[in-house]
Each structure stands twice: as C-alpha cells, then as structure tokens.
C-alpha cells in the first residue's frame, strides 16, 4: 500500500518563551499507509489531540512538514485541508450546528467539496439519499430529518457527526475520543459504526481513545504517545500478542482512567 500521510519531525510548542511553555509535540514522525486504521493512546496531556489538530490545521506547527497524498499541506489553513479530512470531536456539541435540522447539517457536510453558491441548500434528491443512508445507521434518524440537532442525544449526535465526516469519503478520518462523552451503550454503538465507516470504503483513520481495550480491538495498528513523542508503534503479529496488562507494564501508564 502506498503512503498516504507523511508526518516528518513536527514540533508544536504552546506559549513559547512564557512560564507556561509546553512542548506538546516533540519531533513527531508518523507515516500512514492507505487503508490504515490507527488507534492512538497515551496519558492525559501526552499530545494526542495536538497531533490530530496539527494534522487538521487547527494549529500551525513550529517545525517539520505534513504531506498528504503527495501534497505538502503544512501551510494550508484548516478549512482548506478539510476537503480531504473528516473529523469527529470528543464534545458531541462540536460536530454539528445545533440550531439547524439534521438534513441541513447533512447537506452542509455533503457539499463540502463542491461550490457553495446560491443553488438550493438541499434538494429532494439529497433528502432521498440522506434518508436511505441514515436508515443504515439503524438509529431512527431517517425519521427525524427535519428535527433540530439540539434535540438529539449525545450518541445520536456523534453518530450523525461521524456520518457527516465520512459522507464525502475523505482521504483521512480523524477521531478525537469521540466516544468518551457517551454512556457505554451509545459508545459501543458509535464504535461499531466507526468500524463500518472506516471499512467501506476503506478510509485511512486515526482514532484517539482513552480505552486501551478498544485501542487494541479496533483498527490494524496502535501507537502510544508520551510527553509529546510516539513511544510505541505496533501492528500485525506484535499487536495481536499485546494485552492491556502488558501495555500498562511496559509504559507505566497511570491506569486510573485508561484501563477499561
């Protein structure tokens, strides 16, 4: 498989030169191949979200380069990178426009890579397509398409956001603890949906999770971050042999929040 994302030596420092100076990413390099589904684990403050945000262009990096599909995107602003990336945030409020309807939200995501001119925001053909695709989520959202998103539960919102992130089949799917705010039942539903989104069609996925079991269960590769560096990168045989206990032992992770 061909390399899709090449991150070379990126460094991100917050509050440089102040007492609060924090090196959130310290010369991180990471290469993702097409179809990779990589899970990311690590302590609070290890730099996981910063890594994702630097890839998405939320923060400009201080050093290094980011190449996506042979195109150097290091200097591109966030909204210009977005055409190749789908994102789901930890906070279920962050992924959707709460005062707009489900179908309006979907339409905004659906027209991501097309002109935003004065043609109708949503057509009846779009509605049909959305209804059909939503019914595959099996969350009953297809019957609520004209309901405002603020009326949905956290799980429904995350499912919708995930669906919106994947609908344009981006090159890269970036998920930042997108199930952390959900109750266990909703979380497992959204995770199952994540697997489906990442599989068909095969989207290159980077998923941060605080749950080590999930990290080993989903995807084909797992990386562990610590103090702004990637300190473990396993896949294949090595990953299959890995267990949560061994992970804790190996990297002396605080296991209060991360164990289950």
């Amino acid at each position: 498989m061909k390399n899709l994302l090449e991150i070379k030596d990126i460094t991100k420092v917050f509050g440089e030169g102040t007492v609060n100076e924090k090196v959130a990413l310290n010369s991180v390099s990471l290469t993702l191949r097409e179809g990779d589904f990589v899970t990311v684990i690590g302590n609070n403050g290890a730099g996981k979200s910063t890594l994702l945000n630097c890839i998405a262009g939320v923060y400009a990096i201080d050093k290094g380069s980011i190449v996506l599909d042979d195109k150097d995107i290091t200097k591109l602003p966030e909204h210009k990178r977005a055409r190749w990336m789908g994102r789901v945030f930890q906070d279920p409020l962050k992924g959707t426009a709460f005062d707009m309807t489900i179908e309006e939200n979907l339409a905004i995501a659906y027209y991501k890579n097309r002109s935003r001119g004065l043609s109708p925001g949503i057509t009846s053909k779009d509605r049909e397509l959305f209804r059909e695709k939503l019914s595959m989520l099996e969350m009953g959202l297809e019957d609520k398409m004209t309901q405002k998103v603020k009326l949905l539960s956290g799980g429904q919102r995350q499912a919708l956001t995930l669906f919106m992130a994947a609908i344009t089949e981006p090159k890269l799917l970036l998920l930042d603890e997108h199930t952390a705010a959900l109750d266990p039942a909703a979380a497992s539903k959204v995770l199952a949906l994540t697997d489906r989104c990442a599989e068909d069609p095969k989207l290159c996925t980077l998923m941060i999770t605080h749950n080590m079991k999930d990290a080993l269960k989903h995807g084909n590769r797992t990386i562990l971050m610590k103090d702004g560096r990637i300190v473990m990168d396993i896949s294949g045989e090595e990953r299959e042999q890995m267990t949560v206990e061994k992970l804790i032992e190996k990297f002396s992770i605080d296991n209060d929040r991360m164990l289950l």
Partner: protein
Amino acid sequence: MIMTFAAFLGSLELGMIYAVLALGVFLSFRTLNMPDLTVDGSIVTGMAISAVICAGGGNPFLALIGAALGGAAAGLITGLLHTKLKIQAILAGILVMLAAYSVNLRIMGKTPNIPLTKSTTVYKIADGILPPKYAGIVLGLVILIIIIALLYMFLETRLGFVFRATGDNEDMVKACGVSCDNMKLLGLALSNGLVGLAGGLLAQNQAFADINSGTGMMVIGLASVILGEVIFGTKTLMRRLVAASLGAILYRILLAQALYVGMESTDMKLVSAIIVVIALTLGLLGEKSSKLTRFSAKFIKRRVQR
C-alpha cells in the same frame, strides 16, 4: 389613554422601517451570534447618503441603494478589523461606529442636519400614487416583504446554510471546508447593508438626516428581535424573520402608546431603555422557563390586542 388612529398608522409606518433594521441586527446577533455595534454608525451612513442624493435631486430609489451600500461598507470594515486584525467583535464595531461619525459628517458636507422637505423622496412618490394616509405603510410593507423573501431565499441556499451554521458552530463550519472569516465578512456586510437601507428609508420618511440620530439604534434593533422572539416564537427560519419584523413594529407601537399615557417626547430614550429591559428580561426568562414566558407573552399579546 389609547393612542389615536393616526398615531397608530404613524407607528406602523415607522415600524416597517425599523423592521428592516431589526432584520439587519438579526443577521449579526442571531445568525452570526456576534455582538455588532457598528449599527449606530452605519444607520447614519445610510441616512447621510440617502439625504445627500435626494437633496441633490437624485433618484430617491437609487439613494436607497446607495444607503445600503454605504452601510455594507461600514460592516465590511468592522468585519475586516475583526477577522484580519483579530480585534474583538465588540471593539471593532465600536471603532467603526466612532470613525463613522466623522465620515458621515463628511458625506453630509459638514452640516449636522440635511432637510429634505423640498426634495423628492420615495414617500412623496408613494403619496402621489396611493391615498397618502396609507401610502407610507404600503411602501414600507412592500420593501419589507421583498427583503424578507430575498433573505429567506438566501438563507436556504448552500451558502446560506453554512452562513447560518457559522453562528452555531465555527468548528463544524471549518471542518466542512468553509472559512468562517469569509462568512463573518459576508454577514456583517449584509447586516449593515440592511441597517444602512433602514437609515436611508428613515431619512426620506422623516424628511431630514441628522448626524446624531444613530444613538441607541443597535439597542432598538436588538430589542425588536428579542421582543419578536418572545412573542412570536423561533420555530422555523421564516418564523424568525417575520418575528423580528413584527417585534420592531410592536416596539414602535409601544413607544407611541407611551406618549399617550403622559410621557414627554424627551422621555423617549428612557422609555426605549425600559422596553429593552422588559424585552431582555422576557427573553432571559424564556431561556430559563418557557412556561413562564409563554404566560407573559400571552399576557402581553392580550394587552396589545386590547
């Protein structure tokens, strides 16, 4: 004491104009979720341009377009200060409002007041066609309906969708490949364009432009929006646009009524402020307890109908 029928018609006529202002304020405060204080300046820009063109014998309809463009320019500058120079939205608005005072004076040829009693205005043209008693109301209503229709159509386009989402959730808009800065520029220009148009209409309606008449306009616009929301609801997009307009009209009626219960015309700013406080309180209660608001709204509605 209830106001006379003529006074009621007068406040309806003014209400149509203030409804345009309210729609402008709705775009910035509600759709973009941005407190924009440019309004007190851009409305006078609209008045000044409108008055200068009319006084110079120009086409009063062109004068209105000029007024809208002038207001839009002011909004665009606020937007640029905010998005490019990263100045806080409130401060950017205040700065432009301040600067607009000098610019407006220059537009008016350094006189603080331009009378239009001898010039052709859209209202005088309407008076010649329709019965003068209702001409102003009909003209205002036609303009208002056109604006609501255009605004509604725009907000239902692809561009309109992301524009609306910007006020809800900037992260989502960026994640969907759209620059929030561009949306804010567009929104502030549109919003103040409407405000400028309202100013242009106001100058022609009262047959003068005054450099000091911008004070408190933003507050009046916001109060109209909130009053409309509390009483007429926010369920659909069309409902919200109509509610903001009706809020403005209701506001004018309340103000006119205050004169008839013994307030002096010099007390009007005080009355304005009181209406705003009541509207804001009702809006606040609305967030806390929709039940109580519905009750007070019903109460007010009954009062108004009586």
